[in-house]
């Protein structure tokens, strides 16, 4: 019922956007000449630093409360209401920016470009969820991230997907992470922000395709819960890695698991590890042979990935505006424009930079992409290798446990567990 009410509430908020569609431009400017003076154009003041600090405090408070609700109170209801708060505050009020997901690009850019002065708020938004994840698992994903929260509200009819498919699709966020780092490191683009699917909803404005992508992901999310978090989010990939080492992760049962299997299908994210019965344990010799094989395959995958990535460095680099400009000038293709000079070329011609300087700069950037291509390809190869490893490695489990990497700490499974601890 509450979920339905929340959806109705969100739909009402989204419907306000229709206003933008029917809004009518007015022209031309007033021209009264009888003493009327045009008021000066006012530019809004930058956001107060105090509000930025407030955001950090709210983030810390939200992370602390949600972690407490998850680890101590084990309250699904509490997490749900924190999700609503996250959507309202970090989503609609803060208009989705700065967000932790996008902050990884700012941090990368700051690491690779000393001239970039990264705001402390952005660093805090990047670091704090990582720190909390290291201690408590992905509690940030559970009820603080507005991108996750908005999808969670739409997870109405979750359907299970095959674990192999989950694994295969789960590789995408790591590729996205690698690309996001590459493009931020080279100062090319912040692709995570460019393709943020829900920012349009939070700001009540955006391109048509932005709304289509966001709408489609919410639609998919009705059946395949949180598709962005699971199969796209690059920050989630980072949290996935860190959460594996979390000190105090949520458990399904507060005491000993009685293997009642009630929680087995409770997770909409396929993040529950089922017990593995001892008799299925494979022989040591087979396991050893597999490890040796994987020991060869994984470095090979890294090498192949790196080599492949390096071969595509020109394709990767072409989206860099300077590389593209150099290419257009070199080939005299004018960005495909036939009726007029492309504005990039007009702007370049009006600058004092020589073509040779531009070509040198573009060559330098392309070389960065060559190195980046090696690293990106190697990283993707490693991810494939580790995915292969995780699929083939045998782990003995006697209890139902959350997968610390993919578990979003939503606490849905907790409600299914009949084991209670008397306090």
């Amino acid at each position, binding site marked *: 019922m509450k979920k339905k009410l929340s959806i109705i509430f969100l739909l009402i908020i989204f419907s306000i956007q229709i206003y933008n569609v029917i809004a*009518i*431009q*007015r*022209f*031309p*400017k*007033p*021209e*009264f*000449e*009888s*003493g*009327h003076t045009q008021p000066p154009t006012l530019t809004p003041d930058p956001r107060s630093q105090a509000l930025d600090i407030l955001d950090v405090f709210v983030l810390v408070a939200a992370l602390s409360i949600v972690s407490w609700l998850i680890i101590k109170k084990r309250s699904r209801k509490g997490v749900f209401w924190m999700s609503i708060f996250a959507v309202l505050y970090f989503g609609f009020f803060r208009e989705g920016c700065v967000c932790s997901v996008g902050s990884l690009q700012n941090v990368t850019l700051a690491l690779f470009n000393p001239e970039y002065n990264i705001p402390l708020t952005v660093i805090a938004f990047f670091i704090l969820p990582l720190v909390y994840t290291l201690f408590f698992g992905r509690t940030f994903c559970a009820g603080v991230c507005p991108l996750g929260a908005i999808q969670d509200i739409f997870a109405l009819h979750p*359907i299970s*997907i095959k674990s192999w*498919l989950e694994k295969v*699709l789960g590789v*995408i966020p790591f590729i996205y992470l690698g690309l996001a780092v590459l493009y931020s490191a080279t100062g090319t*683009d912040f*692709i995570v922000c*460019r*393709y943020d*699917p829900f920012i349009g909803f939070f700001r009540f404005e955006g391109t048509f*395709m932005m709304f289509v*992508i966001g709408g*489609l*992901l919410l*639609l*998919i999310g009705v*059946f*395949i819960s949180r*598709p962005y978090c699971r*199969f*796209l989010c690059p920050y989630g990939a980072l949290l996935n890695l860190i959460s594996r080492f979390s000190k105090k992760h949520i458990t399904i049962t507060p005491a000993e698991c009685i293997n009642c299997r009630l929680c087995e299908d409770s997770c909409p994210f396929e993040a529950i590890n089922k017990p593995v019965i001892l008799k299925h344990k494979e022989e040591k010799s087979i396991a050893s042979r597999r490890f040796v094989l994987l020991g060869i395959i994984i470095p090979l995958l890294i090498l192949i990935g790196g080599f492949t990535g390096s071969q595509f460095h020109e*394709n990767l680099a*072409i*989206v860099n505006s300077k590389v593209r400009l150099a290419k257009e000038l070199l080939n005299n293709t004018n*960005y*495909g*424009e036939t009726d*007029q000079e*492309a*504005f*990039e070329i007009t702007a370049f011609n009006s600058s004092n930079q020589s073509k040779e300087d531009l070509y040198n700069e573009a060559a330098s950037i392309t070389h960065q992409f060559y190195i980046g291509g090696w690293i990106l390809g190697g990283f993707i190869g490693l991810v494939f290798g580790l995915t292969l490893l995780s699929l083939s490695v045998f782990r003995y489990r006697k209890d139902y446990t959350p997968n610390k990497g993919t578990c979003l700490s939503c606490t849905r499974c907790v409600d299914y567990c009949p084991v209670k601890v008397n306090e």
Partner: protein
Amino acid sequence: MKQKLIIGLSLILLLAVIIFMVRDFYKGSNRNQSNPYEYKLDNLKNIDPELITYAESKQIKPNVENPLAIAIDSKDQIYVCGENILTKFDTTGNQLLSFDIHSTAYCIHVSTTEEIYLSKLDRIEVRNPNGTVKELWEIINDRAVITSIVTTEDFVFAADAGNKVVYQYDLKGNLIKEIGKKDTLTGAPGFIIPSPYFDLLIGTQGKLWVVNPGRHSFENYDFSGNLVSSWDRTSMQLEGFSGCCNPTHIALLSDGSFVTSEKGLERIKIHSPNGDFKTVVAGPKSFVEGTKGLDIAVDSKDRIYVLDPVKELIRVFEKQ
């Protein structure tokens, strides 16, 4: 089976989203040559020919420098004024009279007794039918910009764009009251007039119609100054008015419909008494781009006279 189908479709959609993102990033141009803030009015200037039910039947050269205003009296005689000169024509375009008015007249009205009312910016000049000055009414406020005058048997109404108010005078020029002034106590919203176009007329039912151009609305007042009714139509399309302040001029057809002229998108249209769009008299392609201040008048045969200040012509439009 149903679940498999849903999963399959969801995954296809997910992959489509990912493929679109990748394609958009690498193959999309990521650039837009056009200025997103530029007003693109070209499409709006193209009007379906079927909606234009009037045709230009005649052009009259008024021989008035910088013609600004046009009026037609009860005998269908045409009056045009501008810089220093007022000229009178018969319906065929033959000049009947022309006299010096010594300065620019911004609007003109001819009463049923053929007295000529001229706006000299911040005062009203009343002239006899032969052109001699009868009276001069000073407006109390030095910010006055009188843009339109109409008369009834008992009153004279003058629209002051500078003070955003309509003055009601008796026939001797005594100010009776101000109509439509913004009043926070009574909640009267007032007129929004960003540019010096503020027109009024007396409707078929003897009530005062005033254009509130900033609101794209027509407001109907009784002679006590009470707002009786109003309608507004804001639209870039033919159905309404757009820009900071439109329509700039209005006139009345015998069936009570309004003829309107607009600037920005230079259009002459007809709206029914309740505001609904009826037809187009002349579209933007009939005028030089940037033309504004297209004053209009209607004769007893519902022919529409448009004073084109750029071409310095009286252009007559008749229903086809």
